[in-house]
């Protein structure tokens, strides 16, 4: 009897221990699961907030936004674009895909401050705002003697308040070797007058991943940007696609050219520009419809043939008007755009037509209603 009681007490304690362990495991499981979920939720929230910030920043034309992300300094943000889809987020934790916005950014950023710069892309009318993304610890070094663009870019990126300007430095081929680059997360060289024969001595010791270059060149008609990366002690063309055409109408704050500086790779630039061409195609439908309304407006305005055809506003809008009338140019633009969307190499022809539309618009605006 006594022995049976002893066994029962031992069994009772084992039973209590097992039950206690199961209960403990149950709560530990919940805590672990909650922790993982909370981390995932936090990353998702951060990416969603980033998306909202990007939306706000991209529509605020010509503005620079400096976003404090010091709490994310341990998490690398990544940006990529393939098949017309931009993907960005926190590596291995959360990401978001975007098929509409034109975001030009380095492939990776890890910084206490994010810089977002919105520039309108006019080709020739406003197509959309390009969002240029960079960080406070990304350094841009402009190299090119006597090139006007250098001064313009320096002026565009400078702000008297130190915390509100991009880290941009100018250099000449002579001063390249003695550059002080500090502790930049990434250094992007912008060569405006060709690639130097050898890698600057100032960067030879730096990690390959931290150095890249974009070389602008022009044959007088079209401008190209070629992307390079550091490989040991030389600059080598980036793997895969390394060259892109810059299609723009020039002028100050040239969004297409600025975007080439901020895009991490030629692949990203080309892929993101395809989104701009897609939008341009849709906008063209709106301007075609507006052209019809302008044609109707002037048809009722004049009613019959004007005795002064050289002052007749209809000449800008009708097929039978001036040589570079809107009707002919928009149709040509539409056809070229279709070709461009099929094959990126065909996009070069767009530039001339865009320039012609711009000229006709300026002529029309002087005496009649402009198209845009």
């Amino acid at each position: 009897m006594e022995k049976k009681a002893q066994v029962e007490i031992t069994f009772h304690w084992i039973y209590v221990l097992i039950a206690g362990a199961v209960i403990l495991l149950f709560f530990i499981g919940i805590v672990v699961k909650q922790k993982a979920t909370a981390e995932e939720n936090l990353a998702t929230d951060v990416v969603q907030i980033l998306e909202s910030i990007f939306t706000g920043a991209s529509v605020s034309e010509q503005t620079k936004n400096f976003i404090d992300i010091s709490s994310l300094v341990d998490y690398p943000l990544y940006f990529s674009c393939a098949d017309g889809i931009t993907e960005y987020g926190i590596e291995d934790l959360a990401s978001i895909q975007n098929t509409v916005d034109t975001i030009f950014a380095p492939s990776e950023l890890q910084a206490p401050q994010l810089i977002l710069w919105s520039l309108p892309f006019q080709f020739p009318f406003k197509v959309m705002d390009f969002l240029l993304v960079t960080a406070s610890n990304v350094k841009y070094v402009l190299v090119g003697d006597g090139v006007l663009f250098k001064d313009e870019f320096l002026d565009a990126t400078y702000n008297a308040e130190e915390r509100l300007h991009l880290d941009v430095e100018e250099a000449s081929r002579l001063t390249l070797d003695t550059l002080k680059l500090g502790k930049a997360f990434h250094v992007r060289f912008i060569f405006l007058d060709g690639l130097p024969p050898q890698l600057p001595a100032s960067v030879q010791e730096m990690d390959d991943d931290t150095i890249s270059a974009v070389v602008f060149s022009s044959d007088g008609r079209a401008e190209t940007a070629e992307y390079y990366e550091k490989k040991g002690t030389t600059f080598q063309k980036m793997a895969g696609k390394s060259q892109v055409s810059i299609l723009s109408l020039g002028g100050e704050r040239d969004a297409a050219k600025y975007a080439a500086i901020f895009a991490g790779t030629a692949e990203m630039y080309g892929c993101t520009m395809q989104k701009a061409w897609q939008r341009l195609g849709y906008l063209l439908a709106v301007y075609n419809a507006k052209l019809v309304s302008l044609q109707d407006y002037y048809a009722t305005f004049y009613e019959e043939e004007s005795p002064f055809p050289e002052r007749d506003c209809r000449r800008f809008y009708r097929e039978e008007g001036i040589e570079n009338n809107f009707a002919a140019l928009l149709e040509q633009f539409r056809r070229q755009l279709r070709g461009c969307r099929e094959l990126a190499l065909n996009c070069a022809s767009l530039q001339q037509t865009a320039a012609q539309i711009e000229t006709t618009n300026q002529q029309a605006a002087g005496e009649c209603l402009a198209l845009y």
Partner: protein
Amino acid sequence: MTETIAVLFIFFILILFGLIFYAQFQKSAFKEKAEELLQKRATETMLKVLFLPELICSERSLTEDNCFELAKVQAVVDGNLLEGGRGVDTEIDQEKRDYYFSIFSYATIKVQQLSVAADENDEPYVLYDHPLPKFTKSEPTFFVVALKEAPDTYHFASLAVTVYS
């Protein structure tokens, strides 16, 4: 033995209460989050519409804030341009429809002219109408914009953006 079963029963009842309480809490938190997201989407959609190149006023490449061009608005409505158009190329129409859907998602965008001279019975311009089938909640947002009628005549207009969930 009966005592042990009673203790276990009460323990599991307590666990069950805990789970029910947690589920209720999560449900209300989820509801709150959904509402917050809907409001955020309403604001973002309004922002996107206000700066839409398809609608904004432009003159010699300069754009005017909070201003829509009547000719563009009419072009968008007549051609149903934000919803794929009325063309014959259904592939392009579908692509366009998908494109604008990824900008606005399930939403309705209307512009109503508010000019004193305007007839009160004037129909609003419906630029985009894509309500969520069997939606449970809608969030309307309003904004006053200028409606520019060539040549250089402006009207007041109300922009209404409704998003659904």
